[in-house]
């Protein structure tokens, strides 16, 4: 048992977390998995603390996951979404956050379409802030649960080759995972059509491939991403069927992969586009393990952030 008393004020970017920080978070997460397996899945650790989920973009998994995590810790969890708040009446982010601050929340979980939104908010209030996705920038809690899911199945996070396939240009999940995997010395190759791979991404130390078939046999983990239709004015390829033919994962293509390969997807899944239904539901698919780990990781983060005072 490692006794690393790390101090992490906010969870904004995987770039802020050292390997030791991540290992400490996972060590704490293991304890919360035990709580999730109890008949009564609740502990009083955050009794009297308030967690606000402030979501300016749609979300099912992440918001629910944070809500369940907070409730299992006995925190009071409040959800604010764009459509149900005064944001739709023209209130600015600054005003929304200042008003929330006046209600003295302990942790603010923020999802926003603008990169850096969570970081900006930390300067406006005393509460701890968790970035639950800021534009195409980062989604650190997703990367943490992805790393944990990989560690569960490969027993290590080092020396692996991870392929991330799809809309890399718009993917905060890809960016956060690249930063996290590199911390542990794993290799990342991003795969997709040229129009979805940012120019110069090699500078971040990742491999690039425009040919999924050619590289699939070398991958230990395949992480499929959704085409983020809402962030494109028009599709950057002729049509979804053609995209699916070259970059979708189906049983036929999977035959070229290593026998112990595992498939991941941060969701939401577009079945039949980036992943065939029989692949998404197969035993080597870890999609639901990712969701399960998400609750435990977020419990650990809420607990660790609430456990110390500035």
């Amino acid at each position, binding site marked *: 048992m490692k006794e690393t*008393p790390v101090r992490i004020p906010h969870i904004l970017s995987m770039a802020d977390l050292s390997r030791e920080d991540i290992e400490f978070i996972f060590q704490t997460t293991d*304890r919360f998995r035990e709580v999730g397996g109890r008949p009564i899945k609740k502990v*009083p*650790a955050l009794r009297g603390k308030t967690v606000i989920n402030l979501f300016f973009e749609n979300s099912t998994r992440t918001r629910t996951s944070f809500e369940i995590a907070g409730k299992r810790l006995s925190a009071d969890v409040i959800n604010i979404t764009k459509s149900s708040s005064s944001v739709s009446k023209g209130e600015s982010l600054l005003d929304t956050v200042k008003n929330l601050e006046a209600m003295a929340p302990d942790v603010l979980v923020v999802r926003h379409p603008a990169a850096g939104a969570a970081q900006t908010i930390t300067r406006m209030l005393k509460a701890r802030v968790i970035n639950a996705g800021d534009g195409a920038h980062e989604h650190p809690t997703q990367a943490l649960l992805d790393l944990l899911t990989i560690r569960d199945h490969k027993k290590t996070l080092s020396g692996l080759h991870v392929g991330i396939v799809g809309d890399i240009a718009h993917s905060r999940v890809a960016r956060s995972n690249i930063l996290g995997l590199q911390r542990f010395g794993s290799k990342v190759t991003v795969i997709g059509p040229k129009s979805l791979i940012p120019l110069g991404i090699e500078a971040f130390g990742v491999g690039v491939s425009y040919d999924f078939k050619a590289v699939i046999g070398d991958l230990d983990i395949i992480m499929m991403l959704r085409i983020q239709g809402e962030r494109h004015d028009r599709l950057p390829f002729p049509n979804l069927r053609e995209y699916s033919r070259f970059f979708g994962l189906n049983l036929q293509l999977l035959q070229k992969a290593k026998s112990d390969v595992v498939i991941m997807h941060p969701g939401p899944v577009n079945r039949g586009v980036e992943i065939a239904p029989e692949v998404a539901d197969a035993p080597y698919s870890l999609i639901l393990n990712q969701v399960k780990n998400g609750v435990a990781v977020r419990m650990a983060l809420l*607990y*660790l952030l609430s*456990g110390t*005072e500035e």
Partner: protein
Amino acid sequence: MNASNKNILLEAIELKALFDRLASEIKEREVLSGPFQLVGIHTRGIPIAQRLAKLMNRDPDQIGTLDINLYRDDLSQASEMPVVKETEIPFSIDGSRVLLVDDVLYTGRTIRAALDALTDLGRPKSIALLVLIDRGERELPIQSDFCGKKVSVQPQENVKVRLQETDGVDRIEVIDRQA
């Protein structure tokens, strides 16, 4: 070792005698009221419970371990991030007679948290408490059922239980934090 701020309360041989006595007290009580299931509180309650199990010819791997961090009443007062350790109970809490084991009984707050942690896992028939050292100065109405030794120390003094398993040596010391 600085002799000026450290007093040895019990040496290894005295500690051994104390364990023997506690083990026989437990066995005596069990004759009257049925068997106990041992549950050690992190950190030193665990090796203490394991030693008692061995002295009573039971499997030391069958004791329960309890972490009370999620039940503390002073979470935000800690200056560093709390390290949560493993809670593992290899038997059903429901209906069992639990003997909680810890090293030092002081304010009673750890035991208060342990009672909550334990009852969240099930409904024991009863819970009893064993401590190696009772140093008094309780802040809650909690008493032990089995006690190795009662001592009277000053508020600025720390009673430190050192065990082979966790500290590499068997010894109980009183340390003056101001000296």
